[in-house]
């Protein structure tokens, strides 16, 4: 059976199509201000790029913050459940997931069937999220995609002590003024995110193996800082950004 998953996040909208346990295609676009339109668009594009017909898709599951704006979905589940299902499909041995998205981060414990055992989310604050990195990229005038590669060159990460995104930004600005190297500042930013996330993760107690998902998982600097902070080996989902959409598509198959 062919099914689809649509994940409307705060920054990007993702779609995935699966068929009988196989991934057929994925697509990522910016959400913009209209979540409903983004859902329709990302779905149409994933179908078009993979030369698939809408009528061949039997079920659609929506997830993410905009899950209720996807009117054509048969059902919606939270991204917590979908990330669990997506990671389970990629590696059934995974017992913990750290999902770092645009406006929040979560730690999820899963059982051997890929079902959620427990979860914890960041509180109402942008620190430790993708948005935090975006703000920093702007302050540093560096493309966000270069963050990972630059930071792993750092020998002496700067210290970012502020927990608040706005204060951390002014801290970064003063580090720039002091002439600290970009790569050190970026490495410091990654360590600050890792510290923030590891204290959240500690609340539910991670079990290995751990997988990181969400858009921020594409940043090798954050992943390394996180692995170091947690003292664990961390696997990165090869489909980090679309992991939730893939999970949603798999859940659609069991409807």
């Amino acid at each position: 059976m062919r099914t689809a998953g649509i994940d409307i996040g705060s920054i990007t909208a993702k779609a995935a199509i699966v068929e009988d346990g196989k991934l057929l295609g994925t697509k990522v676009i910016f959400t913009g201000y209209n979540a409903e339109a983004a859902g329709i668009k990302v779905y149409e594009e994933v179908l078009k790029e993979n030369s698939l017909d809408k009528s061949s898709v039997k079920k659609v599951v929506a997830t993410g913050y905009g899950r209720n704006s996807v009117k054509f979905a048969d059902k919606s589940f939270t991204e917590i459940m979908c990330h669990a299902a997506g990671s389970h499909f990629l590696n059934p041995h995974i017992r913990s997931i750290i999902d770092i998205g645009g406006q929040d981060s979560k730690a999820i414990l899963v059982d051997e069937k890929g079902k959620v055992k427990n979860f914890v989310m960041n509180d109402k604050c942008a620190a430790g999220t993708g948005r935090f990195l975006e703000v920093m990229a702007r302050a540093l005038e560096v493309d966000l995609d270069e963050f990972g590669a630059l930071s792993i060159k750092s020998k002496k990460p700067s210290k970012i002590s502020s927990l608040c995104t706005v204060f951390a930004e002014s801290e970064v600005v003063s580090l720039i003024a002091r002439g600290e190297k970009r790569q050190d500042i970026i490495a410091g930013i990654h360590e600050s995110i890792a510290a923030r996330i590891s204290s959240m993760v500690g609340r539910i107690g991670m079990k290995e193996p751990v997988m990181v998902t969400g858009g921020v998982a594409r940043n090798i600097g954050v992943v390394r800082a996180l692995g170091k902070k947690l003292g664990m080996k961390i696997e990165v989902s090869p489909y980090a950004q679309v992991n939730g959409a893939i999970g949603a598509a798999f859940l659609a198959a069991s409807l």
Partner: protein
Amino acid sequence: MLKTIAIFLAGKFKKFTMRFKKSKTMKDYMMVYYSEAKSARLTRRKVAWITSGGPVEPLIAMNVIPIYPENHGAMIGASKMGGGLCELAETMGYSADLCSYARSDIACATVNGGPIGGLPKPDMLVCCNNICGTVLKWYEVQARYFNVPLFILDTPFCHTEYTKEAAKYVRAQFDEYIVFLEKACKKKFDYERLKKVGHLSHQGQLLWQAVLDTATNKPAPMSAFDAFYHLALIVTLRGTQDVIDYYTQLLALMKNRIARGIGAVPNEKYRLLWDNIPIWHRTRWLSEKFASHNACLVADTYTTAWCGALKYIDETKFLDSMAEAHARIYLNIGIDEMAKMVLEMIDKYDVDGFVLHSNRSCKPYSFGQLDIQSIVEKERGIPCLMLEADMTDERSFSESQISTRIDAFMEIIKERKAVSKK
């Protein structure tokens, strides 16, 4: 003025008042209560502002009208006026980290704002620190502002036990409290009247407990959201006949609903326990959100606080036992003791999950919640959910985040229940 109160009460709780039709409604009682307090100058009665955990019975015995700024705070929250008043308090120089009840009350007093145009002016203030430390400074601020006498009842923290020294210390303050009242009211204290008031107070608390107990039934005839509403009388008028009449009626109504199989949530499938003060500005939204998952918050640790110390009350030694009952309330005991009470409630109400409101305003209530959550997870293995918000300040609420958390929490509960049924 009266009209404002009536409109407020009718509007805020229309859903509930319609659901529980009875001869004399909460609206009627509260209207009479606030209008009597507002016209106290004319009737030559005294008005005392008192903290929610304070001993109100001596005031009733002295014919003083007790007014609760915290109850007012809840009304401010329910009418979504907390954010504005908190902002005003912040403009006055109070920190945004200060309790939102304190901020709204302090701000409201200066502008006679809020849903009922401000509280009637106090002739005295009675502050008991069994609920928190903030009330000390809050009441000192108000005592200076209104230039009225302040009585402080200091209850030592009771980690596990109520020591002899603590008993002596608290009991002695009750005598001082009576002297304070005699001076403020310029008349002798009536110990005979206190006996009667004490009896009514005890009966009222027993009735309130009986009302809450009806939610052990499946389906629960009332939810915690109903309890948040019906709570007002046991807080404000404890020790009067009105409380007895109201809860006797309410109890009969709940029993009738049980007999007819009517639940607060039409299709109750999941039963939950709530911890901490309600998110007053979002009770309707939360109630509908949980109901959409066929989940009913059948009990809470908050409304039980007004009958939680029943086991310490002895009518024959009212003043002594009252001292102990006030010192050993839920917020003045150690984490292990609190967790024990939570576990008892989980068993009593047979709940499937535990929802904890991490309340930015209420430090003593929120501090230690993570430990209580861990104890519950370990001892009972039920899913727990922590929601970060604020009881009155609607600026500390993120709807989409909370919505996702509740949905994910309910997904876990549904999954577990489905598995256990197989």
